[in-house]
C-alpha cells in the first residue's frame, strides 16, 4: 500500500471510527481532528516523495478492483493533483477547528461527512482510472448534500437539492462519455484513453459532455446558479470546503481529462471558452457588487474568480495555464479564509447583511486586519498570493486574445470594488449601533485557524516559485499532449489560432 492510498484511507477510517464509537462530542471532535491531521501528515510525506522534476504521473499504485469490467483501483499524482491534494488536507483540519463550537446538532454525522468528503476529493484528484474518478466525483455529492442540507441555513433544503441535481446531471452526461470511451478501449485506464485517437466529431461531443460536468462544478457561467444558494446556505465549514476544494474538481477535471483527451475539440472550443470565462468574470463581479448579503457577495466573487481559472486554462500557454492552477490554490486559500471570517462574524451577530455592520474596525481590530489582508489577497494585490496567479493569467490571455485580456482586467478592477467597498462599509465609519459596539474580537482558536492561511497567502505572494516548480512540468505535459494530439489530427490548429487572434 503506497502513500496515496494511505492518504486516501485515513479520513474514511476516521469516519468509520466515528460511526462505531459511542463517546461524547469531545471525543468525536478529537477523533476527527486527529484523522484529518494524520491525513495532512500523510500528504506531506507524499510531497516529500514527489519528484518535482518529473512531469509524469508518479507514485502510481495499482490494485485490482473490478477486473470483470476493466476497472482498476489505480492512483497516481502529478504536480497539479499534488497541490490540490495538499490544499484539501490543509483546509480540512482548519475547517474542523473552525466549527469546533458552532456545530452541536448531530456532531458525529457532521464530522464523519467531512472526513468522507475529504476521501472523495482526494480520490478525485488521485484517480487514474476513469471509473474510479467518476466513483469519487459522484460520491462527493452525498456528504456535501448532507452538510448543506442538515447543518445549513434557512433555505438549506432547496440549496442542497439544487446542488445535488445540477452536479448529478452534469456527472451523468460525463458518465455517458466515459462509457463511450470505454467502448473504444475496453478499460477505464487513463493512459489507454489518452492513447485513443478519436475523430473530430467524436471529440466534439465527448468534450462537450465532459465540459458540462466540469463546468457545472467550477461553475462556469451560465451553469453557476446553484453556487450562490449552496454557498449561502451551507454552514461555514461547508462553504470553505466548497469554495476551497470542491470547485477545483471542475477545473482540475478540465485540465486532467477534457484537454488532453480531446485536443482537437479543445483548440476548437478554446476561443468560445475564453469568451464565456470573460462573461463569467464580469457577470460574477457585477452581481457581487449588488449583493447585500456578504456571504452571497463572496459566492458571486467565486464565480468571477473561477472564471479567471478557466480563462487561464483555455489560454493554453504554459504561463497562463500554470498560473490558473496556482490560482486554484490561491482562490482556495483566500476565499476559504473569507468564508471563515464571515462565519466567525455570523456566529457573533447572526446576520450577514452588510448594512447591519459599521465601524467594526475599532471594535474588532484583529478581525478587521485579517479581513483586509485576505480581501487584498483576493483582489490580487501585488505581494499577496492572488497577484502571482491572476497576473500571469491576464498576461497569457493578452498574448492570444487582446479583447479577452482587456475585459478580464476589468474584472480584476471590479474585484477591488466589490471586496473593498463592503470592507469599508462594515469596518469603517462611525460605530453607530449597540450591536456593532458589542461585537467581540476573534478568539485565539479563531485566530489560530486563520493564521496558517494568512501565512500561506503572504508566502505564496512573496515567493511563488516552489509552487510553480511543482505545477509547471505537469501543465507543460498536458499542453504538449494537446499540441501533439492536434498536430496528429492535422489542420485544426491553424483555424483555431485564427479564431483566437
Amino acid at each position, binding site marked *: 500500500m503506497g502513500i496515496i492510498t494511505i492518504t486516501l484511507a485515513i479520513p474514511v477510517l476516521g469516519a468509520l471510527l466515528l460511526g462505531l464509537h459511542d463517546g461524547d462530542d469531545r471525543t468525536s471532535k478529537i477523533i476527527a481532528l486527529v484523522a484529518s491531521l494524520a491525513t495532512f501528515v500523510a500528504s506531506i510525506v507524499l510531497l516529500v516523495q514527489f519528484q518535482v522534476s518529473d512531469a509524469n504521473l508518479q507514485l502510481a499504485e495499482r490494485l485490482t478492483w473490478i477486473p470483470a*469490467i476493466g476497472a482498476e483501483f489505480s492512483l497516481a499524482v502529478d504536480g497539479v493533483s499534488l497541490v490540490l491534494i495538499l490544499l484539501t488536507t490543509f483546509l480540512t483540519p482548519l475547517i474542523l477547528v473552525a466549527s469546533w463550537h458552532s456545530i452541536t446538532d448531530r456532531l458525529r454525522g457532521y464530522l464523519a461527512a467531512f472526513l468522507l468528503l475529504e476521501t472523495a476529493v482526494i480520490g478525485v484528484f488521485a484517480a487514474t482510472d476513469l471509473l474510479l474518478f467518476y466513483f469519487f466525483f459522484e460520491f462527493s455529492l*452525498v456528504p456535501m448534500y448532507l452538510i448543506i442540507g442538515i447543518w445549513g441555513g434557512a433555505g438549506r433544503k432547496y440549496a442542497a437539492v439544487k446542488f445535488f441535481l445540477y452536479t*448529478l446531471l452534469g456527472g*451523468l452526461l460525463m458518465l455517458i462519455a466515459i462509457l463511450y470511451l470505454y467502448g473504444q478501449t475496453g478499460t477505464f485506464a487513463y493512459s489507454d484513453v489518452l492513447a485513443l485517437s478519436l475523430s473530430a466529431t467524436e471529440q466534439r461531443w465527448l468534450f462537450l459532455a465532459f465540459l458540462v460536468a466540469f463546468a457545472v462544478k467550477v461553475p462556469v457561467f451560465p451553469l453557476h446558479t446553484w453556487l450562490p444558494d449552496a454557498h449561502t446556505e451551507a454552514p461555514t465549514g461547508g462553504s470553505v470546503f466548497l469554495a476551497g476544494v470542491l470547485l477545483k474538481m471542475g477545473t482540475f477535471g478540465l485540465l486532467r481529462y477534457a484537454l488532453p483527451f480531446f485536443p482537437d475539440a479543445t483548440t476548437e472550443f478554446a476561443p468560445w471558452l475564453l469568451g464565456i470565462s470573460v462573461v463569467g468574470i464580469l457577470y460574477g463581479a457585477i452581481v457581487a457588487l449588488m449583493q447585500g448579503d456578504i456571504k452571497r457577495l463572496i459566492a458571486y466573487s467565486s464565480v468571477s474568480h473561477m472564471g479567471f481559472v478557466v480563462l487561464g486554462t483555455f489560454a493554453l500557454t504554459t504561463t497562463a495555464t500554470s498560473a490558473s492552477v496556482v490560482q486554484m490554490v490561491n482562490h482556495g486559500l483566500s476565499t476559504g479564509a473569507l468564508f471563515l471570517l464571515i462565519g466567525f462574524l455570523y456566529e457573533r451577530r447572526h446576520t450577514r447583511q452588510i448594512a447591519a455592520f459599521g465601524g467594526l474596525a475599532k471594535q474588532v481590530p484583529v478581525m478587521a486586519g485579517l479581513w483586509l489582508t485576505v480581501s487584498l489577497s483576493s483582489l490580487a494585490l501585488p505581494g499577496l498570493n492572488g497577484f502571482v496567479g491572476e497576473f500571469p493569467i491576464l498576461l497569457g490571455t493578452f498574448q492570444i486574445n487582446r479583447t479577452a485580456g482587456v475585459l478580464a482586467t476589468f474584472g480584476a478592477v471590479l474585484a477591488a470594488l466589490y471586496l473593498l467597498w463592503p470592507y469599508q462599509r462594515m469596518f469603517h465609519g462611525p460605530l453607530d449601533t449597540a450591536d456593532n459596539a458589542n461585537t467581540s474580537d476573534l478568539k485565539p482558536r479563531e485566530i489560530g485557524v486563520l493564521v496558517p492561511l494568512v501565512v500561506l497567502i503572504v508566502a505564496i505572494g512573496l515567493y511563488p516559485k516552489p509552487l510553480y516548480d511543482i505545477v509547471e512540468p505537469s501543465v507543460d505535459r498536458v499542453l504538449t499532449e494537446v499540441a501533439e494530439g492536434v498536430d496528429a489530427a492535422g489542420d485544426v490548429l491553424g483555424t483555431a489560432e485564427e479564431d483566437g487572434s
Partner: protein
Amino acid sequence: MSTSLLSAVTPLLAQMAPVSVEWSAVAPELLPTAMALVLLLVAIARGRELIVAVPAALIAAAVGIWLISMAVVVPGAVVIAVGFALPASAVAFPRRQSLIRAFSAAAALVGALVLTGWQYATVLAPTAGGMTSQEALQGALANDGIAFFTRVTVYLSALLILPIGYGYLQERRINRAEVEPLLLLTVVGMAALGTANDLITMFVALEVLSIALYVLSGLARRDRRSQEASLKYFVLGAVSSAILLYGMALVYVATGSLDLAGIGSSIGLVTTPRVVAALGLALVTVGIGFKISLAPFHFWTPDVYQGAPTNITAFMAAATKAAGFAAVLRLYMVAFPALESLWVPILAGLAAITMLYGAIVALVQGDLKRILAYSAITHAGYAIIGVTANSDAGLTSTLWYLLTYAIGTIGAFGCVIALERRRRGEVTLKELRGLGRTSPLLAGILALSLLSLAGIPATAGFIGKLLVFQAGIAAGLTWLVIIGVLSSVIAAFFYLRIAATMFLEEPDPERGLPVVSTGLSLGVSVAATLIIYLGVYPQPFLQIVETAAALVR
C-alpha cells in the same frame, strides 16, 4: 420432511418416464415445492397437524435412508433431521405455528440457494472457463445464466422478505397459514419462468406465480385497498395473460414450433409468414409488458403496490420483475432475434416512455408505497435498455441490474414496513419527518437503499446502471441512455425528497417510533450490507455475470 414428498417419488417417476429426467436442472426448485405442499397440507389439516406431519416424517426418513444408502450422506442426514424436526416442533410448540412455518419456508429457501450454488459449481461452471448451459426435459427447460441469476435474485428476495414481513403480518393479523406456502409457490413459479425454454412452460410458470400473487395481494381481507389491489391485479392479469397466450398461439401458427430455439431458427425463414409472427410478437410484448409493468401497460402497478400488504409489494417489486425479465430476455434474444429490426425500436420507445413517465409521475406522489411503485416502473425502463441492446453485454447487464434493483427495493420497502407498523396504515412523506433524528439507523438504511435505486456510486445500484448504460452505448443506443440519464436525475429528485424529509426536517413529537422487529432489522441489515458490498467490490459477482450469456439457443 420437506424434500421427502417429491424426492420420494423420484425413483418412481424415473421408472415411469420414458426418458431420463435431469433432476440436477430443477434441483433448487424441488425443495421449495415440497415444502410448499407440506405447508399447504398442514394448513388444511388445521389443528391436526400430526396427521400430515407424521406420515411426512416417515417419508422423509425413508428418503433419507435411501439417499444415505446411495452414498449421498450429508443431504440424506439433513432430510431425516428436517423430516423429524418439523412434526416434533409442531407438537412441542403448538402455539408458535406461524414461526415454525416461517422458519420452514426460510429453510427451504436457504436450501434452494445452496442447491443453486451447487448447480452452478457442478453443472453450469464445472471448469473455471465460464458458464455452460444445460437443456432438460427435452428442451422445455434451459438451465443457464438467465436461470441462475433469476434463481439467485428470486430466492434471495424471498429469503429477505420472510423475516422482514413476519412481524408485519402478525401485527396486521394476516399471518394466515397459506402465506408461506403461497410465497414458496410463487418463488417456484418465478424460478421456473427463469428456466422456461418453451412457450408452454413459460405460460404455465407465469400463471403459477401470478395466481399465487393474486391471492397474496388480497391477503388483508378486511382492508378494502388490499381487496381492490387483488381484484385489479387479477382482472388485468387475466386479460394480459390472455393477450400473451393469443400472441404465443400466433407465434406457434407462424413458426410451427413451441420451443424458443425452434422459433428462433424458423422465424427468419422465407416460408414463415412474417406478418403473423410480427403480430404474435406484438401481442407477446403487450402481455409481458404488463407483467413487468412497462409503460403504457403499467396502470395496475401503483394501485396494486399500494394496496397489497407491504411485504408482498416488496416481493412483487423485486422478484416478479426479475422473473418477468428472464422471460423477456429469453423471448427476444432466443426466439425473436430474427425480428430484431422490429422489436428493438419498439422496446426502445417503450423504455424511453417508461423511464420518463415513471420518474415524472413519481414526483407528484405523496404516498411512499406509490412513489416506490412508480420508481419500480422507471426501473423496468432502465432494465429494458439492456434487452434493447440485444447483445451479450445487454443480457448480462440486465441480469445484474435486476439483482441490484431487487436488493435496493427490498431495503426500501423493508423500512417502509417499519413505518407502516407504527402508523397501521398508509405511509406518506409526512410520516418520515425527522426520522433521521428519531431512528437514525432505519433512516440511514432507507436512505442507502434510495441512493442505490438512484444509482449513486458506492451502492450496488450504481454498478447496475453503469453496466446497463454501457450496454446501451455499445449497441449505439446513446439517445436512449441520454433519456435514461435525464430520468435518473428526475428520479434522484424524488429519492432525495424522501431523504430530505428524513434528515432535513424536524420530527413531529406526537408520532411514535417505528416498530423494528428482530426479523425486520435482520432483513434490512443484510440488504444494506449487500448494497454496499456489491457497490464497492462487485468483482466476485460480476465475474459470474460476465459469463452468464451462454444460453440454450
